[in-house]
C-alpha cells in the first residue's frame, strides 16, 4: 500500500519542483565532494602502499652501534663478522641471505668529481636482486654497475671509466668500468638497497680496495614468504644477539605504517573539507523544509483539525526531506563515479585502484551521509509542523 503521507510529500516536492531540485543540488555537490575526496585519498593511499610493499619481504641486518669501553682491550669492530653471517644464514633457513659491503667514497668521471655509495656484492647475488636495464651484469674484476640517478647525472654510458677515491696527484687511483646501468628504483626499493645513487662492484674488488674481507656492513635476508617476517627476525635475533645486542634487525613495515598513517590523516583532512559542502547543503535543505512548512501552515491546520496525529504530520515532512535526499544522493552518486574517476585520473594518474571496494565504498557512503544530512535537516521543520496549534494554523493565510 502506498502511504498517503508519502504521496502528499511527493506531490509537494513536485509542486515546488524547481525549489526542491535546487535544494537537492546542494546534496549532489556534497555527495560528490565527499565521495571524490574520499576516493582520491584512498586511491593515493592504495598506490603508495603498493609501491612501498614491494620491498616488504626484506630484513636488513646491520651492525649495532658499539660503545667503546674505556680501557677495554677488546676492540669491537663495527661490522658483521663471518661468524655472525653464518648464524644469520642458519636462522634464515631457506631464505636467501646476501652480505653487502658499503662505503661512501669520492670518485671522478672525466673531469667531474662526485661522491656516492659504493656497494660490494657477490656478482651472483647481484644477478638475483638487481635489475640491469642497460648493458650487462658484472663479468670482470673491475666492472661496475651504476644506479639510474648517478648514470643520468654524470651522463654515464656503458664503457665509461670511473676513478675511485680522492684525487691525489701522488697516488694512482683505481679505475672501474661501467658495464651496466640499473633501472630506476624510486621509492620502491625492491632489493633493500638504495641503488639509484650507487656504484655496485664485486665483493672481491671492494675488499681489495677498501679492506674488510670476511666483514660486512649489511646483510639482507630476502624472504620467500612475507608472513614469516617476524618469525625469521626473532630467529636471527635469538641466534646472533644471544649474549648482547650486536646487530640491529629492521624491515620496512614500520615505514609503511607511518606513511599510511600520514596519508590516512590527509584523507581525513580532505574529507573534512568536502564535508563543509554538505553543511552548506544541510542549511539549504533546512531552508527549503522551513519554507515548505511555512507555506503549508493552513494545510497543516486542516490536517490536524480533522484528526491527523502529530506523528503523521512529522512523517509527512520527514518523507519530504527524505525525497530531497534520495534525489540528491542518486544524482550525486552517479556524478561521483564520473567526477571521482576524472579527479583520481587527473591527480594520481592511475585509476587501477578506483573500482576496488575500499575506494568505491565512498560512493554509497557519501550517498548515505547525504541522505542522513537531509533527514536531520528536516527534523526541526517536521517537529515544528506537528506542534502547531491547529486553530492558529487554520487562521493563517
Amino acid at each position, binding site marked *: 500500500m502506498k502511504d498517503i503521507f508519502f504521496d502528499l510529500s511527493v506531490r509537494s516536492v513536485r509542486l515546488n519542483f524547481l525549489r526542491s531540485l535546487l535544494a537537492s543540488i546542494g546534496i549532489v555537490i556534497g555527495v560528490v565532494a565527499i565521495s571524490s575526496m574520499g576516493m582520491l585519498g584512498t586511491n593515493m593511499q592504495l598506490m603508495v602502499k603498493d609501491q612501498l610493499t614491494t620491498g616488504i619481504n626484506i630484513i636488513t641486518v646491520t651492525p649495532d652501534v658499539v660503545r667503546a669501553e674505556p680501557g677495554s682491550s677488546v676492540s669491537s669492530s663495527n661490522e658483521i663478522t663471518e661468524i655472525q653471517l653464518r648464524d644469520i644464514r642458519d636462522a634464515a633457513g631457506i631464505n636467501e641471505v646476501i652480505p653487502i659491503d658499503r662505503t661512501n667514497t669520492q670518485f671522478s668521471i672525466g673531469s667531474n668529481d662526485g661522491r656516492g655509495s659504493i656497494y660490494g656484492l657477490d656478482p651472483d647475488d647481484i644477478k638475483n636482486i638487481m635489475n640491469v636495464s642497460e648493458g650487462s651484469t658484472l663479468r670482470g674484476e673491475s666492472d661496475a654497475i651504476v644506479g639510474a640517478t648517478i648514470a643520468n647525472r654524470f651522463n654515464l654510458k656503458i664503457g665509461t671509466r670511473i676513478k675511485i677515491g680522492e684525487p691525489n696527484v701522488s697516488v694512482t687511483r683505481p679505475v672501474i668500468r661501467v658495464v651496466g646501468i640499473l633501472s630506476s628504483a624510486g621509492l620502491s626499493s625492491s632489493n633493500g638497497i638504495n641503488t639509484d645513487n650507487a656504484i655496485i662492484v664485486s665483493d672481491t674488488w671492494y675488499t681489495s680496495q677498501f679492506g674488510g674481507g670476511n666483514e660486512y656492513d649489511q646483510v639482507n635476508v630476502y624472504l620467500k614468504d612475507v608472513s614469516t617476517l617476524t618469525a625469521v627476525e626473532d630467529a636471527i635475533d635469538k641466534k646472533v644477539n644471544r649474549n648482547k645486542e650486536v646487530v640491529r634487525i629492521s624491515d620496512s613495515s614500520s615505514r609503511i605504517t607511518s606513511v599510511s598513517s600520514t596519508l590516512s590523516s590527509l584523507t581525513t583532512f580532505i574529507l573534512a573539507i568536502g564535508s563543509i559542502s554538505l553543511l552548506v547543503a544541510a542549511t539549504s535543505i533546512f531552508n527549503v523544509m522551513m519554507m515548505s512548512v511555512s507555506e503549508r501552515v493552513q494545510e497543516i491546520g486542516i490536517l490536524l483539525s*480533522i484528526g491527523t496525529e*502529530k506523528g503523521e504530520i512529522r512523517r509527512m515532512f520527514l518523507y519530504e526531506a527524505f525525497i530531497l535526499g534520495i534525489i540528491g544522493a542518486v544524482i550525486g552518486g552517479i556524478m561521483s563515479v564520473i567526477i571521482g574517476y576524472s579527479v583520481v585520473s587527473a591527480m594520481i594518474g592511475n585509476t587501477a585502484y578506483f573500482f576496488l571496494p575500499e575506494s568505491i565504498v565512498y560512493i554509497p557512503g557519501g550517498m548515505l551521509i547525504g541522505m542522513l544530512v537531509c533527514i536531520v535537516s528536516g527534523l526541526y521543520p517536521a517537529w515544528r509542523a506537528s506542534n502547531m496549534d491547529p486553530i492558529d494554523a487554520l487562521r493563517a493565510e
Partner: protein
Amino acid sequence: MNDTPLIRLTDVSKVYHLESGDFTALNHISLDINEGEFVALMGPSGSGKSTMMNQLGILDVPTTGEIFIDGKNVANMTNLERTHMRRDTIGYVFQKFYLIPLLSAYENVEYPLILKYKKRDSTGRAAAVLKSVGFDEEMSAHRPSQLSGGQQQRVAIARALVNDPKILLCDEPTGNLDRKTGFQIMEILVGLNKEGKTVILVTHDPKIAEYAHRTIQLEDGRVVGS
C-alpha cells in the same frame, strides 16, 4: 436517543491572555445539546461563536469549566485521544472548505478513512459518501482548485461524514457560497440531521438559522437566548 446529552458544557469560560489585558471570549457558559438536535449558533462578530466551535471541536480546551462530549470529559483526555475523537466522533465543515489542495476530491474524502484504518479505502465508502452529497463522480479526480465553491463544500461535507461521526460542526458552511448553492448545502445538512446526525451550525444569516431546531444566541461570550 438516550437521556445523557451528547454535548454538555458546564460553566465554561475561555480567557485569552493578551498584551492589552485578559480577554474573555466565553463567559460561564452552560448548555446541553442532545443527540439528533440541529442547533444554530448566532451572534455578532466577537460574540464568541468561533471560540465556542473550537471548544466543541476540541481544537481547544476551556480555561475553566468542563466539556463532555459523548460522555467523555475533554479535559481528562490525552492529546492523542482528542485527535482520535476529532477523527471519529466529530465532522468539521468550514466556511472556507479547507480541502487539502494536494489531494483530489476523492482523496480528500478518503483521507479520514486512511487516518482511521491506516489503509486505503477498498470498501467504496468514500465514493458512496461523495455520491450521497450529490457530488458528480466524474469530478472525483479533480483537485479542489478545479472545483466550484458549491462542489468544494459538498466534498468537505463528504469528508466530514466519511467516518460516520455523531456530531457535524458547520462553521458558516454557506458563507462563501451564493444563495442558491447555500440552500442546496443546507438541504444536505437537514437530510443528514434527519438520518440522526447532531448538527451544530454557526451562521450570521437568520434564513439559514431557520433550518435549525434551536438557535443559541451569543453576545460578549454569554448565552443571551436559546
